[in-house]
């Protein structure tokens, strides 16, 4: 056997070993190993709780404030048998950053949703609050609290101070507990991150039901309206 053959055999063995390890590390539903373009897959306990909470309702109404992700619409439609409202506030924010005066954005947010008060069972906030200034964040929080039905739930993801810069994240739900976070180009700049106490104060009328600190440094917070939650001190 020539030395070239030996090298080829070793390479084959090593590559097979590598692929086995990749398969073991991948989440159950990820058919192909993630590539850098596919983003990072994170475990989301907040989503699990959010789904469990809404799963008990016959036909919940869900409001998604992130960019439109087709697979998310399908996922929530199939899992919760819900009516899914897509209101892409990131697009509004980008439009405002380009054209509109920023000081008018809080007033815009207060009138943005045409839904009646107390008609929404769940809100998916994603990481929108990382890009809102304080007045806009407060205006949106007040509006969302008004829209939520008693015992409704709100799931938000809040970044930490170290993650400054531009660009947004697209959250793609893979299953009940895994979310793929994929970066996308955007003109939006991250604002200074909010402290937990500031977030809780903003969502006056909601209680923090669960809060998780992810390995990525992000905080997942699940709020509930009414007596269902327990306030965190």
């Amino acid at each position: 056997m020539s030395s070239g053959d030996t090298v080829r055999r070793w390479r084959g063995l090593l590559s097979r070993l590598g692929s086995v390890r990749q398969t073991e590390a991948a989440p159950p539903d990820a058919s192909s190993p993630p590539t850098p373009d596919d983003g990072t897959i994170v475990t989301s306990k907040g989503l699990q709780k959010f789904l469990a909470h809404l799963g008990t309702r016959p036909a919940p109404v869900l409001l998604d404030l992130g960019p439109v992700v087709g697979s998310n619409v399908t996922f929530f439609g199939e899992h919760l048998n819900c009516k899914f409202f897509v209101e892409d506030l990131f697009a509004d924010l980008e439009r405002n950053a380009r054209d509109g005066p920023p000081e008018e954005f809080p007033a815009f947010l207060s009138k943005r949703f045409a839904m009646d008060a107390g008609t929404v069972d769940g809100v998916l906030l994603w990481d929108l609050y990382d890009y809102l200034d304080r007045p806009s964040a407060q205006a949106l929080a007040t509006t969302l609290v008004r829209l939520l039905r008693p015992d409704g739930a709100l799931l938000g993801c809040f970044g930490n101070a170290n993650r400054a810069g531009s660009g947004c994240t697209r959250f793609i739900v893979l299953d009940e507990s895994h979310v793929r976070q994929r970066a996308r180009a955007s003109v939006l700049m991250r604002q200074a991150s909010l402290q937990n106490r500031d977030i809780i104060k903003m969502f006056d009328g909601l209680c923090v039901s669960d809060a998780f600190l992810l390995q990525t440094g992000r905080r997942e917070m699940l709020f509930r309206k009414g007596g269902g939650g327990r306030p965190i001190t």
Partner: protein
Amino acid sequence: MWRRGEVVRPPDSGREVTGAVAPGTPGVASVPRVHAPEIEAKRTMDKDVVNIGKSVVIKGELSGSEDLVIEGTVDGKVELSEHVLTVGSHGKLKAEVFAKIVIVLGEVVGNITASEKVDIRDSGSVDGDIVSPRVAIAEGAHLRGSVDMQKKPAAAVVPAPAPKAEGKLAPLPGSTPGPGSPRITAG
């Protein structure tokens, strides 16, 4: 035998066209799309797909019993209960839409009700509520409205309940299309 550059015309038999068509427009199906792959063109002819060309403007109700591709502008209501409606990349609909399958590559303002599937491609834009058991939205597509995939008898093509609070176009009551298509009724 189909040749490249040759116009794909659907058969005219049994077609009734009445209604408000913008002056100066060459008429319905006068600006058909020419498909590059021969197989696709053959399939298109076999399946009796009607094209509404880029320059066509229709105001009123459009119903039919064959697949339809809209590249023009439709303002009113589109009903293809058992067939596929494709809103082409140049198509602009300001209408309530009822069909078996709706594929959106252009713009739709109004509610969409599909008994099988709604497919919004990356260039597509929908401003309205969707009722369908299956919905596919490509990355980059625009959607503002609600998606209702609830497994209820609404899966059959019936008008969606009017979104009271949103002030969008209220769906018109459904009507069964007669034989031959498309039928355009002045609005």
